[in-house]
């Protein structure tokens, strides 16, 4: 019996093939396959092709179960850019690949942990929506943390 292949389509309409038995590590895909056989293309409208390529690389890994923890850590370590990691975490969340999502988030946390408030905002590209007075109130309240 030949191995069944699935086709995933990224936000920017690029197609990626992956063997079904590997793809179903994603709970989302597993459920789709169960429901309708998923013979056609599976669209992933929130995942861009760069990120999907990474996810596919991860799903295609050939790893003994006992080495898997180390592998996923190394995998995210090598993609140490925060925007990439956040995209990866988002894709892993959509596809329900828990290990990958946890590892990506943990890596982001590791990268920002010694950052100042301003640096965290910059790294996560979050807009400050507080006035200087409001910000001062927070800093005063949590003086021990800043």
């Amino acid at each position, binding site marked *: 019996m030949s191995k069944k292949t699935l086709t995933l389509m990224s936000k920017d309409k690029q197609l990626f093939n992956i063997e079904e038995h590997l793809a179903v590590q994603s709970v989302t895909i597993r459920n789709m396959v169960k429901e309708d056989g998923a013979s056609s293309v599976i669209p992933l409208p929130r995942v861009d092709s760069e990120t999907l390529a990474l996810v596919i690389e991860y799903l295609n890994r050939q790893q003994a179960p006992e080495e898997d923890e180390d592998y996923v850590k190394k995998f995210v370590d090598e993609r140490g850019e925060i925007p990439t990691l*956040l995209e990866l975490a988002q894709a892993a969340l959509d596809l329900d690949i828990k290990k990958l999502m946890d590892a990506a*988030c943990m890596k982001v946390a590791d990268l*920002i942990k010694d950052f100042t*408030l301003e640096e965290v905002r910059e790294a996560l590209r*979050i807009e400050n*929506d507080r006035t200087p007075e409001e910000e001062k109130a927070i800093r005063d309240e949590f003086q021990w943390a800043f």
Partner: protein
Amino acid sequence: MIHAYIMLLIVGIILAAGLAALPAGSQRLGQQDYNKRGKVSDCHRLKGKGGNRLALLPCSIRSSIISSLTIKEAVVTSAVCKGWRHLWRDTQTLVLEDKTFVPTGADLDERAQKKKEQLKKFVEWIDRILNQHVSITIDVFKIKSGLGSRHDEAITRWLILPSRKK
């Protein structure tokens, strides 16, 4: 319970540094923000190059990031914008440590005095954090501190909390 005790003791021995200033009181996190501006703006719309490339970070990703930080780092990160401000209360990981507090002072007496005050404040601080922590589940609970036997009562009080959670 016993495990937690042993860990606490070991960590306590390793770490005997003092504490630095902790503010007492002041609760009301964020309440004033609401009153002044009436509306919470959408801080999740991410700025900078790439614009909306990341769109908004889903709650589970935010929580997951926060949960990988110590409570100090989590509090700083939670301050980035209004939408994040309560996240640290939900963290699955409570790592409370006093190593960030280092007493400064001209002479030994002054430092010793400050250290005593800071230890007292550290105890109050943990009480406050634990009171505000609302997550039902908790994965990791660590207190790293050089508290002596005078604080047995407080330590027992803190250890009750994780035993009540999952």
